[in-house]
């Protein structure tokens, strides 16, 4: 008779091979063998039923040609596996938590800075240790922890200390409310840190139904960078218009765009380049006399993992559904939509006081 350990090792190898063979394309597909091993690990430690996730992943990899649909299916299946993974011991809880953090932060592998990520893992473990066995807080904290600058790696340890201290209900509740208030007033780049801290502190007080948003967000692990840095704007994002302009305007430069007759409204998509340090409401250009501000648009790449923490831009009010990258490296392109009244033409100009290397990027325009 085969031991359970050997049986699961064999299953892990088979799962990795099967997913390696069928999942091709994106970095998330490339990481699917690892995800298969994670699923088998969850099945071993928590519930044998979870292993059904492996053939489901294989079928999704084969059956769904559209990239986003396939990755979302991967997300849903893996989220389902984690939902079913109810740990029985602290050791199991630690394993599940580590697996979740690995899935959320270590894909794509090419972007992983091993030492810093190991520190994040230790930090997440500290949060779990501070309030075992509730792991959602630890995972949330790990998800949003920036690896740049290096001092930001202290964040999970600080949260762990707070969680450890705030053990009684009034204190935990008070701190959670305070953190949420801080998130409201903090700049967009720091808000996720406050919110994750609030979740970690308040976790024992929350009813189980509040796990639903956590599960829903976990389904987005193939774009975990979005969960960490682009919420809640991501849900407001709409597809960009199809008529590309593609002009980058330096200070005082302008272009004119003809508007066809009979148009009810015009949707202009614009972004900034090298404007990540500019604050909210700073005017970077105008269209037909209407100012284009930071807040309407943002630096196109400010939500990148490396730049986000140091940036000053808020998320665009009407963002564009343009997702770049995968896993923890995924980010929402910083373009915003401006809805304009009909006119004969659009005169778009960059502000005269733009910094020398900054640009107003006119991406595309749509007529409705």
């Amino acid at each position: 008779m085969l031991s359970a350990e050997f049986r699961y090792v064999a299953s892990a190898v088979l799962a990795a091979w099967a997913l390696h063979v069928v999942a091709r394309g994106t970095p998330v597909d490339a990481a699917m063998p690892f995800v298969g091993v994670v699923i088998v690990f969850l099945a071993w430690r928590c519930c044998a039923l979870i292993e059904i996730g492996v053939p489901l992943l294989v079928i999704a990899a084969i059956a769904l040609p559209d990239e986003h649909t396939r990755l979302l299916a991967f997300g849903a299946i893996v989220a389902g596996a984690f939902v079913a993974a109810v740990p029985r011991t602290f050791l199991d809880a630690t394993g599940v938590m580590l697996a979740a953090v690995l899935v959320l932060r270590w894909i794509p592998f090419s972007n992983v800075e091993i030492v810093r990520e190991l520190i994040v893992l230790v930090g997440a473990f500290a949060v779990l240790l501070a309030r075992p066995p509730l792991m959602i807080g630890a995972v949330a904290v790990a998800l949003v922890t920036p690896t740049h600058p290096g001092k930001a790696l202290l964040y999970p340890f600080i949260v762990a200390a707070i969680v450890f201290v705030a053990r009684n209900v009034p204190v935990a509740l008070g701190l959670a409310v305070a953190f949420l208030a801080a998130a409201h007033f903090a700049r967009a780049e720091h808000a996720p840190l406050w919110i994750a801290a609030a979740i970690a502190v308040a976790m024992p007080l929350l009813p189980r139904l509040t796990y639903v948003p956590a599960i829903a967000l976990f389904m987005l692990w193939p774009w975990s960078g979005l969960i960490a840095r682009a919420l809640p704007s991501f849900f407001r994002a709409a597809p960009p218009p199809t008529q590309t302009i593609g002009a980058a305007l330096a200070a005082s430069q302008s272009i004119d765009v003809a508007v066809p007759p009979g148009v009810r409204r015009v949707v202009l998509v614009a972004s900034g380049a090298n404007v990540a340090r500019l604050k909210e409401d700073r005017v970077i250009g105008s269209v037909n006399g209407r100012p284009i501000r930071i807040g309407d648009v943002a630096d196109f790449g400010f939500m990148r993992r490396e730049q986000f923490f140091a940036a000053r831009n808020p998320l665009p009010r009407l963002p564009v559904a343009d997702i770049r990258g995968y896993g923890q490296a995924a980010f929402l392109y910083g373009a915003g939509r401006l809805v304009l009244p009909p006119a004969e033409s659009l005169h778009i100009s960059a502000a005269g006081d733009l910094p020398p290397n900054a640009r107003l990027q006119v991406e595309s325009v749509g007529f409705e």
Partner: protein
Amino acid sequence: MTFLPLAAVSVAAALLLLRGRALWRWAGCEIGAWLLFGALALTARPLGVTVEPHLAVIAFAVANFAMLFAFVAFADDVRWSANRAAVVALMIYLLAIVGAMLPFPIDGDEPFYLLITESIVKDHDLDLANQYRDLAHSATHRLDLVPQYGDRVRPRGTYSRLEPFLALLLAPGFAIAGLAGALATMALFGALLVRSTIRLFEDEGISDATARQLFPLIAFGPPIVFYAARIWPEVPAAWCFVEAVRGVRQRRAVRWGTALLGLVLLKLRFGLIAIVLLLRVWKPTLKRALIAAAILILLAVAFALSAHKAWELRPGPPYFYLLGIAGLTVDGAAGIAFQAPLYLFGLIALARWRAMPSGFRLGMSASALYLIYLFPRTEWHGGWSPPLRYIVVFCPILALGAAALWERIDAGPKLVVTAWTLGLVVHGLAFPFRLFHIANGESPLGDWLGARFHSDFSRLIPSTIRPNLAALAGGIVVVVLLIVFRTGRTFTPAVAAVLVALFFVEGRRPGDRIQFEDTHVTHLGGEMYPREYQPQRFLFTGGWIVRQGDAMKFLARAGRSRLRYQSARGATIAIASRTYALPPSMEYRTIDVDVPAAGCIELRCLDGAANLERMDHE
């Protein structure tokens, strides 16, 4: 399917089947599931994910009920009885009818049963001539109906070859609510079947826990769900058969007598089951003798008046038996392994005959004569109908065998079977028209993969409609399985994943045989032979007719191949850069062709016309 009826049925089913802590936990999970579905819908827009709404809703509904039945199967706080199961089944069948079946036209024999029902209700006769004349006002919503092969078309009237008893049963429902009422009546029979099956399980000593786990897979899994929500005599017949078996086991002559009478009236072919069952219970008392005589006389009269002929009772040649047996077991389009995998356990139970409950042995032995006549028929797969039509009648008995084994089976095979079953249900409810598949040797799975990857996956899916190597291999695997199966613990989900991956990898390679009518061939002009909806299509040799200027592209292996064709006038074709003359021939004949390199090649018709059947690599 709208959300309100779905939510209402979910809640009502939960209230009927759960209580206490389990009910509250289910409620939490249910709310969570709806919120998650909403979140997914919210996420789909920014991600640019487009999923067919009908498919998404059906998939959610199936997942939702799967969650409920997981609670019913594994929770302690349940309210369980055959009656409760039947009520829940009725609600869900009605939901399936309203949400999934009604939006699509009825097909196969269904519109003809409905025409008879219409005739009974409106004209009080069985003459369908006026129904065919006035199809625009028919509840069938089918304007293309004509009398079928075997119907009696006479100056005095047009009479269907189908037995009118089902139509008679549907008449009250039809009179009240038309097609929906007829379908609701079918749902009622489905619920009765569920009740009887659960009672049969209880009678035969199957534990409640096992019955609760199997109930959703039987009642809402293929093939029963697809026949309980459509107009076929199979589900009422299955109910009659189960009641007959129960009646015999309980020595209640009136019960089995009535049930057998119903069985025979529904479909004459079920008389073969009735005969064996009568022989099994034969003990010469006056009451039994009278019942048996009545049934036998009825059978004889009905047979004489039916479209069936005496020669049909002659046994077929052995090879045809092999095809039928292998087909019903492993065929991708019409076999148990692919279309209702739960019943594989029932087949395994057959191999453990002595250890099985008496009801199972009685039921299956009663099916023997029926099966002996079914196996060699060219239409063993059921023709133009949802899969497994001819064996729906004893699915509950096979389920009893599966139930007797259930507790011994490891979690791995159960999980894989459950997941596959859920997939089949979602597919069948979201696309009911795909339940009908032309008998060309492909299956819905092979069709879809072939069209998607332009590679011949169908060759890896067993078929005995167009016999292939996979059918032989599948047949051997099943035989080995029947002998060696103990618990199935080595068949883990990871092993299933590897099999799927291997299937995918091998399927993308060129095969030895190209069937030109298959979906993996890219057809640039030409037409299918015979036409797609040719009645009894399985009797023809399929192919693709090409004329001058038509072309096909397909994956092929390098080297010499043999092309099989038929051409009245002859044709000239080009494969890659070489041309070949196809001499005229009224019979099928072959020519040798060369494929210069493995990969996608083009076959072009330069002149004439030919029906190209297949190309075999040598």
